[in-house]
């Protein structure tokens, strides 16, 4: 904790350790090793990383769940079906109808209400209940998680790589490339994010993308992936560009240039490693945001298209049965919150480990 009477207002584990790291303790250790050590001692971050990995694994194992537990796929509608429980046959969607009495009166028995969570009473089927079309919520939850996580992770990876390339080109070469790329960033930046996402998502979901050599069908997952990747480019691109600009004028780059190293080599060996820690931190933050964005887009119908499940579409589906079967919307939301929270906490820990004083944030 505090040393020698200084009232340092810091109690972050990482900063603690950084304060401890003086003299012999850090002798001979690379910054990466030090970072690794700080991270290892941060049990909270590691704990949440484990949670995230657990969620990821469980979702990846969705087909197993479908095969052995619920015996259905994520898109298997069963609106007219029934389950057998304790010797009784219960329809998956309540049976209803309208009857007409004397004098023109009409009576209705409400139908179509899906059964709630069975918690195993029917042997794995409809463990978490059914949705409005009789599909198994548990299976959809896992497959939906697979889709949401995949969209989140892949789009983040794509946007990170693209941003690095663009930022390097812009900051290193300056001049015209910088001007073009910066204006490109500005253009995307000027759109309200969600509006651009919805517009692109909707336009692409009409017919898919069939221009030039690229042919993507309308219902493909690549559409939300591409849309989210595109929309987030300036959020990584601009901070990175700023950082590289600052680095570019440092002595070690000058030295390298003087030695006759090619641009490519400088970018790879001098610049890239120095932005690596920023990239890693930004990446975790972007994944969290990408997942939330996918949920928002799918909720509005501009992301993952039916009948493919995603956590976002499930929340939207659950809206109209909110009063009678809240589980439909509740469960995917809980999963999303846990996942994103884990990423955020781990991201915090990562940032503290890599640089306790890091001023790297997602710029607006």
């Amino acid at each position, binding site marked *: 904790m505090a040393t020698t009477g200084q*009232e*340092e*207002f*810091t*109690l972050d584990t990482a900063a603690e350790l950084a304060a401890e790291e003086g003299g012999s303790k850090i002798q001979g250790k690379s910054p990466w090793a030090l970072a690794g050590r700080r991270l290892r001692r941060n049990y909270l971050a590691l704990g949440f990383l484990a949670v995230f990995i657990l969620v990821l694994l469980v979702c990846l194992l969705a087909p197993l769940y479908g095969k052995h537990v619920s015996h259905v796929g994520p898109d298997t509608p069963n609106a007219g079906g029934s389950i057998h429980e304790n010797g009784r046959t219960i329809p998956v969607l309540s049976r209803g109808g309208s009857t007409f009495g004397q004098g023109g009166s009409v009576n209705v028995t409400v139908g179509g209400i899906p059964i709630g969570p069975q918690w195993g009473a029917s042997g794995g089927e409809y463990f978490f209940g059914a949705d409005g079309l009789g599909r198994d919520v548990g299976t959809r939850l896992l497959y939906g998680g697979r889709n949401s996580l995949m969209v989140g992770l892949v789009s983040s990876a794509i946007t990170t790589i693209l941003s690095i390339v663009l930022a390097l080109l812009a900051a290193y070469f300056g001049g015209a490339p910088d001007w073009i790329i910066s204006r490109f960033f*500005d*253009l995307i*930046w*000027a*759109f*309200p*994010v*969600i*509006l651009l996402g*919805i*517009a*692109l998502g*909707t*336009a*692409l979901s*009409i*017919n898919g*993308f*069939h*221009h030039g050599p690229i042919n993507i069908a309308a219902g493909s997952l690549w559409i939300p992936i591409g849309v989210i990747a595109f929309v987030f480019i300036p959020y990584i691109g601009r901070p990175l560009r700023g950082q590289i600009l600052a680095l570019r004028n440092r002595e070690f780059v000058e030295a390298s240039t003087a030695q006759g190293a090619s641009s490519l080599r400088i970018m790879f060996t001098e610049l890239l490693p120095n932005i690596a820690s920023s990239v890693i931190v930004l990446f975790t933050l972007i994944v*969290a945001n990408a997942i*939330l964005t996918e*949920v*928002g887009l799918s*909720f*509005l*119908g*501009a992301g993952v298209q039916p009948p493919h499940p995603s*956590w*976002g579409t499930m*929340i*939207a589906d*659950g*809206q109209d049965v*909110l*009063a009678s079967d*809240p589980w439909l*919307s*509740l469960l*995917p*939301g809980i999963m*999303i*919150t846990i996942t*994103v*929270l884990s990423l*955020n*906490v781990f991201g*915090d820990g990562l940032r503290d480990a890599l640089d306790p*004083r890091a*001023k790297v*944030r997602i710029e*607006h």
Partner: protein
Amino acid sequence: MVAFLIRRTFGMIIVLLAVSFVTYLIFFKIPGGDVAGRIAGKQATPQNIADIRLKLGLDKNVFVQWWDMMKQLLSGNLISYYDGTNVVQQIKEGMPETFSLCVGAGIIWLGFGVLVGTISAVTAGGTSDRAITALALIGISLPVAWLGLLLRYFFAGEGGAVSWFPDGGYVPLTTNPWQWFYHLLLPWFTLAILFIGFYGRVLRSNILDTINEDFVRTAKAKGLSSRRILVKHTLRASLIPIVTLFGLDFAAVLGGGAIITETVYSIHGVGYYAAQSIHQQDLPPLMGVTLYGAAFIVVFSTLVDVAYAYLDPRIRLT
């Protein structure tokens, strides 16, 4: 300063033109296929489709088409394909609702964000700090759509349990100020929660960083009490990034970025109008709303830079 503003204004206009052109491309070029047949409103007969093709100038160059639409928009004459309403008029009608939602939420999230961030920094390491950090982290991890539905379910009578709040909708201020306020409470909270958490954390770490800067140590060495140091010297410096963040976030939601909140609570503001038009592939409102939103962002961006220069004497406007 004046030169800066002139240059920025010029830049803004270019950006807005580019934004509108890109929007046009998105809906006209990406999907491919017969545009007129796809969007020719509800009254289209063979005659109408041909008329529309001519009117839209779909046989003309894409720049010409776009510029024609821009002229209509700028003269306030842009008409929706779907229901023949005037786009600018519709946006104007949606503005009071969006403004009510965003200004209220903005005040809440800025106020609480600063409060929470400051408390958290002052008590760094203590239980309140940990609790606030935990809540903030949860706050920024909640999907907005889900939060809105949850609140409607638990507090607005959807679940039948309690009906402390009305279930969405909007009452104009002029009709009934109390109802206006009452109906907006849940939406304000929903919209603000994400930002409170984020701003609180940003402020906290800014304060903690600034604490360790040299000028604060000097102040302490001079013998000023901790609280005074904190308030007087660090807060102002720490608030600068918050101001810039707030400027841009506020612009984004005002410009129609609160789509999800408006949809979940059925508030017929600009964001709601945007979502409807996109869904219906109704291009004129979409052009109008996108430009409207981009204009906010671009203008506030400049305002924020000016404010930043004012607050931080080290910055010079270039």
